[in-house]
């Protein structure tokens, strides 16, 4: 009988995929567990192997399994089930440009042989045939920019670390992924962990690092388990440790678990936390590339930045640079979240518009009501109204719209959204997650909540609106890091685009 695939991704298991897999296994069916294709509204998605490819059935529950099996498991229609056809040809997926996510949902995440058979470790093989400076040149040529939020060119950072001299250098991966509306780091780690391991190994060769750490948030227990298993397998097969694949390269890699602090996604706070301290932000300079983990030169990159590196080395920096627009090269892994009908992962070349993502891919709201706004780029990102959805999704175009790409998360809201409540939440979030080191952020956010409360209550509205703008200016100009510095972005965008929600006193 056919082999059946059921995702083990934690989004899929959060809506019953484990129970579905269990019901299949109990019935004697061979079940394999892939990552998720990223079509999260279809989960649990069950895929039956056929001669034409894997045929999908959407939103399957454990109680549907007897009917599915009675149907013969031949990929045909089954009464009561939503058959979506050959999964790889499903338009929502086929229209994307999957580069970093090419294997996610296709293979078993910790099957190293399948990884290699599907193009894995070709990048490392090529990197090891090159001198470190040539590897850095490939990354610089690719135009790859940091995917964690700030968009700093990866090649420049790597070159700084490469040319620094020290007794030891490090590669630290930022997998703290705290932004609401983002889950791509998690899904890459759960669905294709060797991509990250390979990317970090290439980085180690490029900069002369011998140790690596992945700072992975504790809210992601499944990702922690998968990544640790993958690291063990990579060691056992000679892809980590001393003399990797017979080369001179030695690289040790370890997962470190965060402890529930959003600010530890800020890179210097992350380094403090890795060192075993309170996650208080460090003043820059010195930059981590020169004095990072325990004061040594350290590459700090996001999961998706490092995850793009294997392909860049395998196919060449030029091939990656050929994708995208302007100074935003390559693909971006967008995440459609919130009140959206078809939420999940959309990997596309830079330059796709926000409207294409929300309306064409996302299918509008889940509630069926009109889309009113989207928050782009996480809790420190702007609220954009539907009238601005023509903005192309690249770093510069978003900046011109007083918004930012951040980590690529897009949170959709319907017409019941209350913009002043969201502005208040942005300030409240800052009061809870501030590291406390500087006053504009620590105290300003508390004041911000109070002022917005007064505006919402209709007390001295005009005076308090002026006060709120002043407060935002103080936070923007006076904060040590982007936590306090960017909290005004959601607040001021809400004020700009939805002033009618700040009239106060009205329900």
């Amino acid at each position, binding site marked *: 009988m056919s082999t059946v695939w059921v995702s083990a991704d934690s989004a899929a298991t959060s809506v019953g995929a484990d129970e579905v897999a269990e019901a299949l296994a109990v019935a004697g069916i061979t079940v394999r567990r892939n990552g998720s294709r990223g079509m999260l509204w279809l989960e649990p998605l069950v895929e039956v192997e056929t001669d034409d490819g894997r045929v999908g059935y959407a939103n399957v529950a454990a109680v549907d399994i007897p009917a599915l099996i009675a149907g013969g498991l031949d990929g045909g229609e089954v009464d009561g089930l939503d058959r979506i056809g050959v999964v790889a040809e499903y338009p929502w997926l086929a229209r994307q440009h999957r580069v970093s996510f090419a294997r996610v949902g296709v293979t078993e995440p910790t099957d190293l042989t399948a990884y290699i058979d599907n193009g894995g470790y070709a990048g490392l093989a090529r990197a090891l045939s090159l001198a470190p400076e040539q590897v850095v040149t490939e990354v610089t040529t690719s135009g790859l920019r940091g995917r964690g939020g700030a968009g700093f060119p990866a090649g420049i950072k790597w070159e700084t670390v490469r040319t620094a001299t020290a007794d030891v250098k490090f590669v630290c991966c930022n997998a703290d992924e705290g932004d609401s509306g983002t889950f791509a780091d998690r899904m890459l780690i759960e669905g294709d962990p060797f991509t990250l391991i390979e990317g970090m190994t290439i980085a180690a060769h490029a900069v002369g690092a011998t140790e690596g750490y992945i700072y992975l948030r504790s809210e992601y227990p499944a990702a922690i388990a998968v990544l640790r298993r993958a690291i063990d397998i990579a060691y056992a097969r000679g892809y980590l440790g001393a003399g990797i694949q017979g080369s001179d390269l030695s690289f040790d890699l370890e997962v470190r678990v965060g402890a529930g*602090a959003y600010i530890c996604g800020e890179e210097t706070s992350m380094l403090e936390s890795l060192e075993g301290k309170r996650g208080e932000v460090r003043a820059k300079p010195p930059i981590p590339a020169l004095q990072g983990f325990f004061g040594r030169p350290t590459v700090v990159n996001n999961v998706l930045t490092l995850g793009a590196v294997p392909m860049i080395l395998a196919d060449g920096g030029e091939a990656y640079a050929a994708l995208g627009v302007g100074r935003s090269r390559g693909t971006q892994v967008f995440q459609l979240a919130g009140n959206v009908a078809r*939420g999940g992962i959309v990997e596309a070349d830079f330059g796709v518009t926000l409207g294409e993502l929300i309306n064409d891919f996302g299918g509008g709201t889940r509630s069926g009501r009109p889309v009113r706004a989207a928050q782009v780029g996480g809790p420190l990102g702007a609220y954009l109204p539907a009238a601005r959805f023509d903005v192309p999704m690249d770093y510069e175009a978003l900046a011109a719209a007083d918004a930012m790409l951040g980590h690529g998360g897009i949170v959709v809201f319907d017409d019941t959204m209350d913009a002043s409540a969201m502005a208040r939440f942005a300030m409240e979030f800052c009061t809870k997650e501030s590291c406390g080191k500087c006053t504009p952020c620590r105290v300003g956010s508390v004041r911000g909540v109070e002022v917005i409360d007064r505006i919402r209550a209709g007390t001295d509205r005009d005076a308090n609106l002026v006060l709120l703008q002043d407060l935002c200016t103080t936070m923007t100009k006076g904060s040590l890091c982007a936590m306090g510095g960017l909290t005004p972005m959601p607040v001021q965008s809400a004020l700009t685009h939805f002033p009618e929600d700040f009239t106060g006193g009205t329900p």
Partner: protein
Amino acid sequence: MRGDGRVRRGPSGGPPPAVPADAARAAEVRAITESSRSLRGPLLPILHTVVERFGYVSDDDIPMIADVLNLSRADVHGVVSFYHDFRRTPAPSHTVTLCRAEACQSVGAGALYAATAERFSEDSGVEVGEVFCLGNCALGPAGMIDGRLHGRLSSDRIEALGEGWTR
């Protein structure tokens, strides 16, 4: 430069820890700490292990860990208090931790959180908590219930999941 991060045992900085209430626990915490001491930056891994093992960090654990790592108690205390994960009181029988971040708010997490907190307000065996994003933002409202991630949560679903709970 701040050293290379490997903690070495030096002469003890302060007075020895007071006699802990639970000698077995103290011995285990010492063993946990000693076994991780050679890591670069061992404190967070140690605290995670203590919480996994005992459910929380007790007042007596702190001087013990400080002693083995040759840190001050204030240093260890400062770290414990900075992070949400290092709880200071025993865990209840059941935890319902709901996401209150933006994506989940857009599909009603605010009301769900309020209703759930109210539902279990009289129930000392169930702790309702908040979290900001569980990485399940396309299938909200999301929550962790007894350590397991759930999506598309509703009051009815939480009620059903809690049906067999004894407390």
